[in-house]
């Protein structure tokens, strides 16, 4: 469960004395640092508790929920909430929509960013400086609120009645970081590799597809995860783009189904919340190293 990088354990640490020469000091530091658990444990409990509570509430009966109580262990387990969420709350449909939306945005991001990143890694490409400058400037120029023209544009393209428009609106503004990650990677690939491919008779496209793209797998992994988690959790763009099409809602937007005009189905809501959060958390747990390293790498560079 390494969250930043496997190399952290190897690196010398600010508080770590050289391991062998003075053992006594090391164990002293270790003892001193142990007290921090008293501070860290409750703090982290505060961070994890809502998730535990959410999962437990989704298995509780409505009565038990109304009575409240701090127990995390439901008295009588029930799967009714999930059933209601899946059928009446239409979460079955929404899960499908969310997948479609997230994967479409992901494909757009990976294809666009990898192609552009490869092209921009050639330092002698005319116009390279302008494109890079605009991209970096766009990171710092606030978009303020540009959803209205985006909405207009999607309407003008006739894409308002599908998830493709929403996926484009989700993916396009977020392209800067993936492109910079790819530029960084391809810029570091030794020139000889590309030249060798050319000697073997491969053209530009061929070199990219069979040599460069496979090499870039680690970057692609990071970009895939960042993009997938981002659009799985997106709320604003899918909300705006499904205002007129409730059947196209994604999981995050669909949460509002549980609010009746005068009553709210709290346990159904908890079950719905679990349906939308648990898959992404599990995915993250499996691939966290790639994800976090990607973020850290983007910050460092």
């Amino acid at each position, binding site marked *: 469960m390494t969250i930043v990088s496997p190399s952290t354990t190897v690196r010398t640490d600010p508080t770590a004395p050289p391991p062998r020469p003075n053992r006594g000091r090391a164990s002293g530091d270790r003892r001193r640092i142990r007290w921090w658990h008293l501070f860290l444990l409750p703090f982290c409990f505060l961070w994890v508790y*809502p998730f535990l509570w959410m999962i437990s509430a989704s298995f509780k009966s409505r009565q038990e929920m109304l009575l409240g109580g*701090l127990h995390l262990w439901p008295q009588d387990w029930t799967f009714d909430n999930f059933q209601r969420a899946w059928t009446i709350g239409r979460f079955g449909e929404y899960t499908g929509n969310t997948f479609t939306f997230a994967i479409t945005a992901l494909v757009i991001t990976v294809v666009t960013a990898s192609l552009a990143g490869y092209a921009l890694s050639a330092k002698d490409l005319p116009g390279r400086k302008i494109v890079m400058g605009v991209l970096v400037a766009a990171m710092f120029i606030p978009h303020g609120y540009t959803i209205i*023209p985006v909405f207009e544009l999607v309407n003008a393209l006739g894409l308002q009645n599908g998830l493709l428009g929403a996926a484009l609106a989700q993916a396009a503004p977020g392209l800067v970081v993936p492109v910079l990650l790819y530029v960084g990677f391809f810029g570091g690939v030794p020139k000889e590799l590309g030249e060798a491919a050319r000697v073997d008779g491969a053209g530009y496209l061929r070199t990219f597809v069979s040599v460069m793209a496979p090499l870039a797998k680690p970057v692609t992994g990071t970009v895939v995860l960042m993009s997938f988690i981002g659009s799985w959790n997106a709320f604003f763009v899918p909300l705006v783009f499904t205002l007129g099409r409730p059947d196209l809602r994604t999981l995050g937007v669909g949460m509002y189904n549980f609010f009746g005009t005068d009553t709210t189905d709290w346990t159904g809501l908890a079950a719905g919340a679990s349906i939308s959060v648990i898959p992404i958390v599990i995915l993250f747990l499996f691939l966290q190293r790639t994800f976090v390293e990607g973020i850290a790498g983007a910050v460092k560079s």
Partner: protein
Amino acid sequence: MTAVPAQRTPSWRRRRRRAVLWGWLFLTPLVVLFTAFSLWPIVASWWYSFFAWDGVGPPEVWVGLGNFAEALQASSFWNAFWNSFVFSLGALLVEFPLALCFALLLNSVLLRGRNLYRLALFLPVVATTAVIGLVLAIMLAPVGGVVNEALLTLGIVDRPINFLGDPDIALPTLVGIDIWKGFGITLIYWLAAIQTVPKDLYEAARLDGAGARQQLVNVTLPVVMPIAVVIFLLTFQRSLNTFELVQAVTGGGPVFATDVLPTYIYRYAFDAEMAAPRYGFACAVGVLFGLFTLIITLMQSPALAGRLRRSAS
């Protein structure tokens, strides 16, 4: 493709021309998408902000700076403006330094279970903001909410606190949730920054007899500071764009106590409860919001430029 002039034969020129052509072909999707969905919308919303326009048909009623004047004179605008600012203050005064402290602590190899701690603190970052916001809203409910129950049981309060229904408490509560939610990402930024410190600097410091605290003050912090500017900006930009949390949890209420600029714009542009959408006005507020962010970002730019110059040399 580092051809020396001597190699500039006709065939070299042809190859080079083809490479440039391919390069730009590869760039086309990015240029098209980014222009259409990122750059053009910025320009378009400036243009729309000069019209009284409901979003139907082409904008026709030119009102010049009327929308801007109206926004700047409306107390509701300044209320949302101030609330957005409070979110930033919370992020920059609480989350930013606290995450640094945690990063320093969780960077130590001597700390057992530090990876589990990092994982726990990062969990909210991965989860859907809107969904988590709703779950926290249930937990904070005055009747039957698990938080109030715990506070009552422990005897900390004698009466349930209406965390999200009381206009005075709702904003601090939301700022707290926002910090909880974003803490992990700031922590990762700081951890990444700390790892850029060259380890031989620590060795040198230790040889000079510097203790843990001296190493922190004289080695870690000075090296980390330039990156801190970037983290500061990222945290600031994120906190200003708190839309999903507010919209999901309070929708800006009670009585606009938690209204922020994004929810304010959303209400004028899309909300079905408004009689007619006011796209033009919403765009004007969006432009003002953008200008405000830009000014603050530019105020950072001397420090940022300094960092860029340092990393270039």
